[in-house]
């Protein structure tokens, strides 16, 4: 049975707890054991905190990585921001001994050390690579007929030079995962475009973020989509809170929630009341 340290991040547990709950239920259903990464913090966010201080970002990320290392487990995340931060930080530390020594000097102040053994995984990629599409298909008890706009976000696949999960210009992993539930992935223009929220743009320059969000939503509707399925609570938040103002009403589901529905989870367990755009099952 696969076993991972479950990294929660911020937006899922504190804004959309249904994503956390669905992930726990879906993983249990698939025989993936999630052990809470107790005492972890924000990853910290790659677009804001890293932009303020690369050193502080790296040190706090190393603390999170070291917590999982102590448990002798790899990390699984449900957020592209967390995945990006922790994966990128681990990559930097594992390839730069001088930087690792500098960060470990900081961690030594709290009696911790990062050795470089923790691997960072994303929930979507674990489903695809570890469980596999065939087994996922067998787990579906309630096949779905949704027309879906798959939303990859940015930090799941990029920078691709060392992530190598899928082609960032023409990806298929999330489409395959969505279609395994019976749902249909609809084509659209600019499919790999950013939601607009990242890089601190949502918090400081919200109107710019909304322009990108609107472009995405127009492309989704033009492509015939009726649902959005994301793999990042921050993209999830940007669409779910932005649609009303922009005049759209596509329900937004995290991949874990889509699988929860397709595995017959009770609607109450999906935490859909936290969503601004109503989701009718």
């Amino acid at each position: 049975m696969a076993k991972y340290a479950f990294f929660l991040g911020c937006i899922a547990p504190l804004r959309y707890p249904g994503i956390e709950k669905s992930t726990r239920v879906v993983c249990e259903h698939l025989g993936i054991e999630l052990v809470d990464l107790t005492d972890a913090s924000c990853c910290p966010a790659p677009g804001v905190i890293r932009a303020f201080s690369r050193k502080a970002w790296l040190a706090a990320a190393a603390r999170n990585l070291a917590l999982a290392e102590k448990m002798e487990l790899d990390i699984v995340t449900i957020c592209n921001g967390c995945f990006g931060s922790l994966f990128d930080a681990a990559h930097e530390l594992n390839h730069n001994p001088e930087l690792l020594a500098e960060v470990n000097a900081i961690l030594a102040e709290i009696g911790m050390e990062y050795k470089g053994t923790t691997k960072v995984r994303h929930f979507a990629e674990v489903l695809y690579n570890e469980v596999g599409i065939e087994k996922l298909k067998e787990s579906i008890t309630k096949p779905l007929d949704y027309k879906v706009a798959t939303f990859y976000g940015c930090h799941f696949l990029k920078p691709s030079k060392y992530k190598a999960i899928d082609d960032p210009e023409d990806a298929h992993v999330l489409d395959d995962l969505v279609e395994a539930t019976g749902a249909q992935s609809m084509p659209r223009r600019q499919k790999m475009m950013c939601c607009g929220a990242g890089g601190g743009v949502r918090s400081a320059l919200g109107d710019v973020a909304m322009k990108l969000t609107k472009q995405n939503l127009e492309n989704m509707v033009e492509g015939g989509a009726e649902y959005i399925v994301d793999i990042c609570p921050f993209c999830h938040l940007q669409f779910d809170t932005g649609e009303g103002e922009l005049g759209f009403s596509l329900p937004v589901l995290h991949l874990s929630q889509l699988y929860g529905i397709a595995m017959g989870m009770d609607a109450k367990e999906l935490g859909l009341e936290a969503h601004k755009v109503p989701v009718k099952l």
Partner: protein
Amino acid sequence: MVTPNVDFAKEIADAGGAEVKMCFQCGTCTASCPSGRQTSYRVRKLMRQAQLGLKEQIFEGEDLWDCTTCYACEERCPRTVPIVDIIIALRNMAVAEGHMFENHKKTAQSLYAIGHTVSINDKVKEQRKALGLSAEPPTVIANPEAMAQLKKVLAAAGFEKIVE
């Protein structure tokens, strides 16, 4: 007429932006940038300003902060310039000189206070409990001792200057 600032260009290089010199101004980055389609932000221009060390032009205005760090530019750059790393280096330098949006400061303060970039409230606690989850997630938010350790790590990395 612009006058290159050689000293500041060197500072950028030392801060992790050395590879900006590889940029030959083809403009693939600008053509790939979803933010630039909606704003006056031009990645190619920013890279040129960084090469020339044009500090005032880089720090003034919002362009430096229009990047969503989506990596579309970097993925397509024919010279494999680590554009996002360069932007992060420039932003770190801007912040060190006090150029910071109020909302960004609040995000930093939130991390320093509770270990997360968003707060917890009673409504979410109720939603969590209704789902059978703990009212507070099992993170630093639920353990003051762990939070104190995180704070120590952040402080040792110089984060106090950013949140004050």
